[in-house]
């Protein structure tokens, strides 16, 4: 089976400074892949390469290949790439619009105008993000009135609304309390049936709980990756073992 996303000898530079070194990593479809590693190891940078969010940073360039369904992402149109590869950010960032409009925004920019279709999309996405029951009576109130955890689930629902194939999550729970975190983690498990999820996380427990595959990064290099239970029970690399057992990080 060919992986849906694949990094081949990927290096990334911010001006003179190299942030990723020769990373090769196949990401399997319908799996949850977690990237772990200490702060500044390049895991978020790698994630942001996938849908070319790094394009927004001046002087940033990549070498090597990053393939989406076998096609180099630099040959893809950045806009349609981001439609196929959605992203959930570290801090919940709902637009200052109503809950409904937050979710309808994506479909609208992609040309859907029919009110009924939009209504259906909004309801479906909120249900998928397990938020519908909490907000169904106030869909037209401001999204900024939601709690942090609800806002993050709204952001996930918002990214589902453009029907992506891959969802990138950049430490989606780092700004949330444990209960909200548990809800998001459950949600990630559900999403796996329909989507491919890549999650960057600080928390090894979280990686162990939600992911099928885990990659460990250190100083811009991918040290090793493998099936999550394998990685956590008997890592191959000494560095990985030290990190997992909490001896540094």
């Amino acid at each position, binding site marked *: 089976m060919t992986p849906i996303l694949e990094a081949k000898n990927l290096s990334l530079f911010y001006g003179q400074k190299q942030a990723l070194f020769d990373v090769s990593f196949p990401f399997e479809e319908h799996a949850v892949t977690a990237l772990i590693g200490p702060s500044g190891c390049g895991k978020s940078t790698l994630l942001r390469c996938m*849908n070319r*969010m790094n394009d*927004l940073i*001046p002087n940033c360039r990549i070498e090597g290949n990053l393939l989406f369904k076998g096609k180099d992402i630099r040959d893809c149109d950045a*806009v*349609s*790439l*981001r*439609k*196929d590869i*959605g*992203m959930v*950010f570290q*801090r919940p*960032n*709902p*637009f*200052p*619009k109503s809950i409904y409009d937050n979710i309808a*925004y*994506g479909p*609208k*920019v*992609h*040309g859907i*105008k029919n009110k009924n279709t939009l209504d259906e999309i909004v309801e479906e996405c909120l249900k998928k993000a397990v938020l519908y029951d909490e907000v169904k009576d106030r869909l037209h109130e*401001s999204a900024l009135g939601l709690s942090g955890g609800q806002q993050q689930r709204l*952001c996930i629902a*918002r*990214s589902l*609304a*453009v029907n992506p194939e891959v969802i990138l999550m950049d430490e989606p729970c780092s700004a949330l309390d444990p209960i909200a975190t548990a809800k998001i983690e459950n949600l990630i498990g559900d999403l796996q049936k329909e989507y491919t999820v890549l999650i960057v996380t600080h928390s090894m427990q979280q990686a162990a709980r939600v992911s099928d595959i885990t990659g460990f990064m250190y100083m811009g290099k991918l040290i090793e990756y493998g099936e999550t239970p394998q990685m956590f029970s008997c890592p191959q690399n000494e560095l990985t073992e030290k990190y997992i057992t909490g001896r540094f990080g």
Partner: protein
Amino acid sequence: MRKITNWKESGIRGVWFTSALFASLAVIFILGYLLITALPAFLEVGIFEFLFGAEWNPTGSTPSYGISALIVGTLLVTAGAMLIAVPLGLLTAVFLAYVAPKKLRDAVKPAVELLAGIPSVVYGFFGMLVLCSFLQRTLDIPSGFSWAAASVLLGIMALPTIVSVSEDALSAVPKDFREASLGLGATRFQTISRVLLPAAASGISAAVVLGMGRAIGETMAVMMVAGNSAIIPSPLWDILSPIRTLTATLGIELAEVSAGSMHYHALFGIAVILLVITLLVNLASRFVTKRIEQGKALFVLPSLPSLPFRISPRITEKAAFAGIYLGTFAVLAVLAVILGNIFINGIPAVTWEFLTESPKDLGRAGGIFPAIIGTLELVFGAILIALPIGIGAAVYLNEYAGSSRITSLLRTGIDLLSGTPSIVFGVFGFAFLVLFLGWGISLLAGMICLALMILPTIIKTTEEALKAVPQSLREASFGLGATRSQTILQVVLPAAASGIITGAVLSLGRAAGETAPIMFTAVVFSKRFITSDLFEPVMALPFHLYVLTTSVPNTEPQQYATAVVLICLVAVFYIAAAVLRRKLQKNLS
């Protein structure tokens, strides 16, 4: 001992409070004085006839005092100006906030701000010499002095306000929104138009209203290019028709009216109406901003009718970015044309004699030395009056006042003062200082009018400087047992000095370019000798340029040279402000 300290404390507090009160009382007094002087006209003519009467002919054998054509003129000129300034301004603001790389932005932003620094009389001068004759030649019409010319000029003048205020609003939109939208696969333009612009809506509407206020209140530039026939264009959309605004009527007629006549009272009626219009605009802007901030959109934009086919976002994107680049380019081109024209024609005529001699033969020969000195005397006098009051008011508002009723009243007063068109200060000064107090056309009257005009700016910049002083400094001072007034005088004000001085110097630049407040109160066209007698009239650069341009034929080289000197003088103040800010900040840290 303790008692004395308290006395002293409340005494000092009283001084600050009085300063703050002064600004508000000044507005009430000006409004009241104008109203009382206008009353005979309102009573005699009847308020309805005054507002809606079709004919303005105060000097006819049967004089008529209907100002409807002037009100319509003001509204049309302003609307035309906004039609030009809002789209261009927004495109430029978007370019600066989201499109331009940092280096380009750092070059374009000051250039746009430079447009704001050009004195309005220089715009008028450029309009008369270049814009109107261009219109006349290209459209082959009898005269280029028209609604169109006035709107173009006012549009250019309103641009910098709209650009810089909306750019601030756009830059303040959290970066998260942008990433979230792009992350959903929206194009850059979709992100800008559907997320970023709506998120900055309150700031942008404030920008538009400020620009509108500037256009409504402008006198000199409009008066010099609008043709000034008191008629309603017929048909109403005839943009080549001459037109006359409320401000221009005051500028043209006040100097020649005999005091106490019905015509005189009617002119004050116009000033009152002008003030009321600006007041309404200010109130409307507050209302709109508040509604938008509370998340209640005032106007729900109807969604565009769906086209039978979908234009690909890619094409929209291309078109939109082309628009953004073109808009910004147009703004820069305007600046280049204006400055280029003036400097190329003006520099050769700026000679040593021109700078150091008195004018001869109605300004056709000799120089403008007395005008340079007169302008400097006026602006430094104005700042000496405005600075202590402004600092006092700002200290009271920022350091003492809570959010009480009185504070909000004081703030409203200061807001009103800052929204007052500059010619209103001139009209007030003429009636009260020159005629009623019997000072005559005098240096002191001009200083006071300019001081009133710059007072709100000084209060605002001082307040910003005070807000930037870290609370920890105040706490440290209180912690050592210092009183509030000691803390303010010895810790807070020195720490805020760089901001306060910068604000003051910027105000000097603004005052130096103003004509409307001084033309009835302080200046004469020609004066052989330099005077520093406060009760003597002086010459001033902007007024000199105005009279040369409008009334003395065959003085083009002198006009250009005067414009160059005036622009340079204003620029010196702006540059000085920038240098001072950098230097003083360094000394502090």
